[in-house]
């Protein structure tokens, strides 16, 4: 089942009355949406309000989501429109032009100038997290580091990674899982995600 089909499955669960499935979609796309919005707004408070409103609007609009576009493409459009409306309502100008936010294939165009809206606290946390991730990856055995890098940064499928690393697909799956577990154990103290506490 592809990533797009997984999103569709989660959407279907939400549309059948399971709100918790929507939380999984929020977790999955939270950083992407935040990154997008951070390029469009100056103020950190505005950013949080708009991000929250984006997901709530997406939840309300789920009955209209037909799956013709990928879920993230649809969510991206909601985020851009929400940011526009929010800033116009508050009399503020947008920093980037959302008309350029879609490429020729009508897919989100991520090639926008990054804008720093960090506070000292969030900047410090981001640095801590970035350092922890890099250290965790550097500490991995070579085969795990290669597998997780090819998957997350190169976007290769398990089959492609297996061919590249000359190993079975099952081994690739195991290596990526073990890499994630090792990195997660290093990040957990910083991110503060206790196992028994979710949304």
């Amino acid at each position, binding site marked *: 089942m592809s990533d797009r089909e997984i999103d569709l499955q989660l959407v279907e669960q939400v549309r059948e009355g399971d709100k918790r499935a929507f939380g999984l979609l*929020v977790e999955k796309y939270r950083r992407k949406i935040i990154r997008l919005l951070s390029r469009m707004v100056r103020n950190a408070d505005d950013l949080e309000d708009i991000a929250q409103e984006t997901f709530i609007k997406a939840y309300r609009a789920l009955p209209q989501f037909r799956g013709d576009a990928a879920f993230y493409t649809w969510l991206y459009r909601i985020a851009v429109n929400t940011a526009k409306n929010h800033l116009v309502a508050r009399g503020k100008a947008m920093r980037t032009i959302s008309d350029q936010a879609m490429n020729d294939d009508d897919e989100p165009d991520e090639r926008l100038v990054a804008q720093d809206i960090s506070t000292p606290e969030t900047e410090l946390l981001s640095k801590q997290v970035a350092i922890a991730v890099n250290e965790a990856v550097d500490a991995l055995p070579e085969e795990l580091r290669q597998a997780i890098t090819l998957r997350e940064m190169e976007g290769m499928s398990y089959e492609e990674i297996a061919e590249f690393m000359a190993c079975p697909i099952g081994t690739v*799956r195991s290596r990526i899982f073990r890499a994630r577990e090792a990195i997660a154990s290093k990040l957990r103290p910083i991110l503060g*995600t206790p196992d*028994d506490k979710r949304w």
Partner: protein
Amino acid sequence: MNTTHEAGDSAYDNLSALLDGELSDQGARLAIRQLRDDPTRQARFAEYCAIGDLLRGQHEDLPGLTRKVMAALDDEPTVLAPLRKPREKRPLLWLAAAASAAITWGLWSALPSQESSAPLAAIPTPADVMPYLVAHQDYAQAVLTTPEMHYTRVALSGEAR
């Protein structure tokens, strides 16, 4: 690095594969069902999502956002709008319609040429089909003149497309 992991950790292996879109349809549905009711699994899922984002340089975050969104959804009406049924069932309707058209066309083909505009009842027909044709005259004409059925009529008549 400790290459062994607790027996319980292998339970999250399918979660890792789910995130990569590398499970079978059945396996993915099972993994998603397992996620629904298990906060520990949900926490792992969130961590795996975060790892990917961070490795791709997406460091911007609002850690409490998910909790705030879900708290806000408590005040929202529950969405109840199941997706429509799979398309696989639709061909049965077309098959039934095509079969009806084929039967009707077959009966029409048994008749003399239709160039004359004489009503069906006035054209000599085999005696055994006459009652059927009279009874289904209106329906048969409606089916044959329906645009959607044109392709079926052409195929049955053997004409080239």
